[in-house]
C-alpha cells in the first residue's frame, strides 16, 4: 500500500510548516502541499491526488467548510480531517454533515495527529471528545431556541401583574409563589422577547408580539 498523501490547509504559516515537517517524519505519510487559502487548496486538489486534507476551519476571511463543499462539487472524493484550534458545535456538525471524517483539536498532542490520520484512512471517524460534548450541549441549546413565542399560563399571570404595576413581591404574593419564582418567569419573558426591562416588555406585549393578554 502506498503512502497516505496529505494536503495541509491552514492560514498560520508557522503551524503549517511545522506540521509539514512533523508529518514528513512518518514513513507512511506524505505531505503533497500546504496552502493558506481555499482557492489555492482547490487548485491543488484539482491537480494532485490527495487522500486526506488536513483542514483548519478558521481561515481568516474564509471558512474551512467552504473548501469542503467546493471541493466536493469539483469532484474531490478523498477524506477531510478538520484540524482546528476550536469550532463551535454548530460549525462542527456542519463540517461533519458536509462529509468531514473527523475533527482534531490543535492543542492535542501532535503525535496523536498521525494516529488520527491513519484511523481516518482506514475508514473510521475521529472526533475529539470535547467536540462531541459541545455538540451534545448544542442539542439542549436548540431546545431553548425553539421556545414557543406563546406565553405559558404563569408568564401570562406575571405579565398581568406587570400591567397592574405590581412589584415582583406583590405578583408573588398574588400568585402564591416566591418573588424569586416571579423573577425567573420574568427572565423567561425577557428571553422570549429579547428585552431587558419590564417597561420594554410592556411595550412588546402591547404591540401584540406575545399574543393578546388573556
Amino acid at each position, binding site marked *: 500500500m502506498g503512502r497516505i498523501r496529505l494536503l495541509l490547509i491552514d492560514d498560520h504559516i508557522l503551524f503549517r510548516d511545522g506540521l509539514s515537517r512533523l508529518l514528513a517524519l512518518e514513513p507512511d505519510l506524505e505531505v503533497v502541499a500546504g496552502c493558506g487559502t481555499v482557492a489555492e487548496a482547490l487548485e491543488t486538489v484539482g491537480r494532485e491526488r490527495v487522500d486526506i486534507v488536513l483542514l483548519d476551519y478558521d481561515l481568516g476571511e474564509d471558512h474551512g467548510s467552504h473548501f469542503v463543499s467546493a471541493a466536493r462539487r469539483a469532484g474531490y472524493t478523498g477524506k477531510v480531517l478538520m484540524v482546528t*484550534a476550536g469550532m463551535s458545535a454548530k460549525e462542527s456538525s456542519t463540517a461533519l*454533515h458536509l462529509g468531514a471524517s473527523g475533527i482534531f483539536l490543535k492543542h492535542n498532542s501532535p503525535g496523536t495527529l498521525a494516529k488520527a490520520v491513519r484511523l481516518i484512512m482506514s475508514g473510521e471517524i475521529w472526533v475529539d471528545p470535547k467536540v462531541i460534548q459541545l455538540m451534545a450541549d448544542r442539542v439542549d441549546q436548540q431546545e431553548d431556541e425553539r421556545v414557543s413565542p406563546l406565553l405559558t399560563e404563569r408568564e401570562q399571570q406575571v405579565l398581568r401583574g406587570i400591567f397592574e404595576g405590581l412589584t415582583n413581591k406583590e405578583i408573588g404574593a398574588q400568585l402564591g409563589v416566591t418573588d424569586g419564582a416571579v423573577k425567573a418567569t420574568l427572565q423567561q419573558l425577557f428571553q422570549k422577547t429579547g428585552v431587558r*426591562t419590564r417597561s420594554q416588555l410592556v411595550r412588546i406585549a402591547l404591540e401584540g408580539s406575545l399574543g393578546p393578554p388573556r
Partner: protein
Amino acid sequence: MVFAALVGCGLFAYEVTRRSRREAADRRRVELEVTARREAEEQLEFLIESSPAAILTMSADFLVLRANPAAYRLLGLRQGELPGKSIRKYIPALGRVCPSELRQAFRTEMQCRGERDNGEVFLANVFFSTYNTAAGPRLAAMVVDASEELRDREESNLEQLLAGSRILVGAVSHEVRNVCGAIAIMHENLVRSGVLSGNQDFEGLGALVETLNRIASMELTQSSSRPQAGAIDLSEALDDLRIVLEPCCHEADIAVRWDIPGGLPPVWADRHRLLQVLLNLTKNSERALRDAEVKRIDISASAGKGVVSVRVTDTGPGIGSVPKLFQPFQQGAESTGLGLYLSRAFVRSFRGELRHDPSMPGCSFVIELAVAGNDELHHERVGGNGTNTAVVDR
C-alpha cells in the same frame, strides 16, 4: 295716550321676552360649561386616581395636601394617612428644596432615594413642579418606583458583561491555541530531532506551552452556558442606533441615510450586543469621515433567504489592509485594535456573520443575521458556493 300705553306695554313685553331669552341662553351656556368642567374634572380625577405613578401636592412647608391611591401604595400607607405628613420622611431629596425657592418655577425631574413608611428603601424617579395659589406656593410631584427597573438593568448589565467577557476570552483563547498548536508542533519536531535532548530549558519550554495550552482550552468546555440571544425586532435595534448615532453625526456634519424596509422578520441576536457591533462600525465610520469631502453614512437592511443583512457604508477613504481586518490588536488602530475582532466574535456568538464588502466604494460592512426560527442559515452560509456573499439574495 292709549297708543303710548300700548307701545310702552309692547316695549316692556319685548324687553322681558328678550331678557328672558338671553337669560335662558346664558343658563344653557353656564350649564354646558358646568357639564364640560365636571367632565374634565372627572377625567382628571380618574386620571389621577388610576395613575400607576404616585401623585402628590404639597404646601410650602412640604406637608402633603393630597395624594392619589398609587401614592399610598408606593409609600406603604393606608388611605387617608398622608395629608399633613411631611414628604421629607419619604422623599428626602424633595424636602431639600428651599421653601423660598418654591416661588421660583420648577418643572423638572430627579432620581433619588425614596423610603416607604416601614423603612424600605426604593429608587424614586420624581417629576416635580411648583405652582402658586392664593394660599401660597405649592409643590406637585409625580413619583415612580424605579427599583425593579434598576434591578433588571443591573442584572442584565452583569449578564452582558459576563457574556461579553466569555466571548472575548473565547476569541483570544482561540488565537492562543493556534499559536500554542504551532509551538507544540515545533517542539515535537525538535524532540524528535534529538538536537536539544536533555536540555532543561527546552524541556521547561515544552511544559510551559502545554500549561498555556491547557489554560486556553478551558473555554472549549465552558461554551455550554445558556445563550443570551433571542428573537429580536431588528427595526427596534436600529431605532436604538438612530437615537445614539444621529446627534453625534449631526454635530460632525455627517449625513446619515437610512433604508430600512418595513416588515423585516425577527432575527436571532442579542439586541444589546448587536447595538454594540453597529456602534463600533458607525464610530469607525465617523472617524474615517473626519477629513472626507463627502460625509455620509448609509445604513440599510434587506431580507434574504433565511437571513437579514444590515449594511453600514461610509463615504470615507476605505480600508487598507483587508486580509488582516478582523485580526486582533491591529497596529495603527486608534484604540485597542480589538473593535472589529470583537464585533465579529459577538455577531458569530449569535450565529451571524460580519464581513467587509470590498466591492462597495468607501467602506462597507455587512452584518448577516439568521431569521429567528430558521436553523438552516448556518448550513447555507458555510456550505454555499465558496464566497461569503452567497447567502444574501439581492
